[in-house]
């Protein structure tokens, strides 16, 4: 049953890793704005192509629109 020491050590270190990840994300500012990311992820953004032809973009948008129907 002394394996319990090993089990406890592993589970606690895993937990501490997650905690460290939490602290890191708070520091980076991910919790400053908790609303906008929820909206942002729902946008259907087609890949932005660096094109100097806006008409081509419009055609592509029309295409994705028709396929999304």
């Amino acid at each position, binding site marked *: *049953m002394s394996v*319990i*020491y090993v089990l*406890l050590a592993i589970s*606690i270190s895993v*937990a501490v890793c997650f*905690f460290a990840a*939490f*602290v890191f994300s*708070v*520091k980076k*500012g991910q*919790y*400053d*704005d908790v*609303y*906008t990311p929820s*909206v*942002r992820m*729902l*946008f*259907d*953004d087609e890949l*932005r192509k660096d094109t100097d032809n*806006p008409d081509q*973009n*419009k055609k592509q*948008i029309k295409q994705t*629109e028709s396929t999304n129907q």
Partner: protein
Amino acid sequence: MANTTCYHCGDECEKNGVQFDEKEFCCNGCKTVYEIFSSNGLSTFYEIEAKAGTTPNELRGKYNFLDNQEIVEKLVEFNEEGVQVVSLMIPSIHCSSCIWVLENLNRLHPAITVSQVDFPKKTIRVTYKTGDFSLKALVLLLGSIGYEPNISLETLEGKKNTVDRSLIYKLGVAGFAFGNVMLLSFPEYFEVEEFWLDQYKGVFRWLMFAFSLPVVFYAAQDYFVSAYKGLRSKLLNIDVPIALGILVLFLRSTMDVALDLGSGFFDSLTGLVFFLLLGKFFQQKTYAYLSFERDYKSYFPIAVTRLGTDGKEEDIQIYKIKKGDRILIRSQEIIPVDCILIKGTAEVDYSFVTGESQAVFKESGEKLFAGGKQLSGVLEVEVLKSVSQSYLTQLWGNSVFSKDKASQFQTLTDRIGKRFTIAVLTIAFLATAFWLYYDSSMALNVFTAVLIIACPCAIALAAPFTLGNMLRIFGKHRFYLKNTNVIERLAQIDMAIFDKTGTLTTTKRETILYEGVELTTEETALLKTTLRASNHPLSRSLYDILKSNAIMTLDEFQEHTGKGIEGRANQHSIKVGSATYVGKETTAELANTAVYVSSDEDVKGRFVFKNTYRDGVKEIFADLASYMEVGILSGDNDGEREQLEKILPSQAQLLFNQKPEDKLEYIGKMQKSHQVLMVGDGLNDAGALAQSNVGVAVSENVNVFSPACDGIMDASSLGKLPTFMQLSKKSIQVIKLSFMLSLCYNIVGLYFAVTGQLQPVIAAILMPLSSISIVAFTTVCTNILGKRLK
């Protein structure tokens, strides 16, 4: 013609609607934004949310001050190697379409690299290359699509906030520890006689101790600090029993574990701290995009045009204006300093500053005070005092503005907390004394058990959750409060004072009455055509109410600023303007604004502009007067006295011609015997709003400036004011009810504690159970109450 709504912004397309690309728009502005979006591949804007657009405002020369590099330096966050980063506040952000189009700004101009929106704060952070682009170009671009940023003196002053994330960290630590300690304490809950358990329980117990250390010394810090401060000033606030509880829990558990008396109460300890911090977090709801602390700095523009000695115009920051400078003030601009009029006719609207609803006319050589808005025509003025010395800014030097209302108010929780602490300590001592006599080994056990189980956490959670939820409900109905403390203060109000101009009256619609000889159809048509050519606000209001469809072309049109306008067509002429301009000698000084009309030099009559009162004003007074006193303090003259006496109860006070200081003094006088609520809108109410127990600013557009206050109310919700007051009172009742509920839990727990039967598992069950049920109860109650507002 069928009434359709604009494809871009959703407003009604009236007669001057514009058709484009098989779609209807209410105006050219909306149509232009549609064009910009569709030609740049941004038409998804309309698919995410229909009619989400905002009509762009005319910008004209408004942002010329951004050519000044000094100002730009102060506004941008980062400026190096041809790249600039700026954070702008855009009040018109209101939906997901806005977020989408603003994060796709780079499609509108290649120099923009990244833009990110922070929706709750209504700000956007843009990174752009300064090669052939600039901050001014960015601002104009945003304005052209209907997202004009708000740049005021306050934004220039300083980047205030370093974000305070400590509560999130503490909550994270407490939650992490709580979860782990609960897992580790499971074995001993079940109390099964296992050999291995006896062998290893030491490990488990010391691990629990280790997890509790950061909770007690870091996460619960605030409670200890607050309790210490409270005790030092001889106050027993709610944090005292909480801190006491945490301390006793920790010490008793450590002792139990060290001396092998039991498994300790670490699970209850970490759970307690976690729930308390959760309550604090929930209470923290703030409206990041509204500011309740605005002073004159957010009202004034950043820069003005100064005329150099050589006649050259340059834009300078308003702080740099010195005495003797000559500055230019254009139409619809605000006069930033006390000055003397040199050239031009001044027609200044001081309604926001003094509450006078009539514009003031000044001639060359007369003094102009800061804060008014010039209505039409350009003025050249000579500065008398710098910005910080003008009469208006001096008002903010009054000590009333540094008063902190929240700290001086003893909340319900604190009052109950005081009695709670005393009661618990009494019970603890009595029980200990009893056991000392009966079986002294149990004495310490019982003493600490009582202090542990008499959980103040339900009391500490009732108020945050109730008031926090109520704050949200109010916000949904466009009544934005600064913090939960305001609701408690609102519940105690027994006197309500209102400002008149802008608060009870609205400038959006005006009641215009015609007195005089009836105008013929031709005269009306000519009048309307003439008015169409003028940009003056009074002309526009008058234009809207005239019923005539025959718009003709004028042969001649003349506008004399400050006097009136004249139009000629088909051998007839018409003059509209002040009495003297039109040729009428007036003997009586009319209290309300009046515009005279003469046709072919023959004075026909006048249009009198009466204040239009907002919907529901009469009902507000009828409702409030039934249980509190009401009154009106106005900076305007008493022309409306009769009208107001009709809608107010007979004993209400009606005072006119009140200057800002008068209002402040009056409120102070009333406070000797009442708890006063002040409802106002303008700078002239600023002192009164700060002095009153609760100050509410009414605003037609909450994104625009409102003076420092405890709450901002959208003008459309003014009619709900009595309901808001009722709900505040009911919230306090809900809190009291939940105190009763927590009392039940405490009695059950105390039974176990006093008889010496308190096992860790019982404490671990009771604590979360009471917390969660209080939270559920208060949330359900406030939501039910909130339905009254619908």
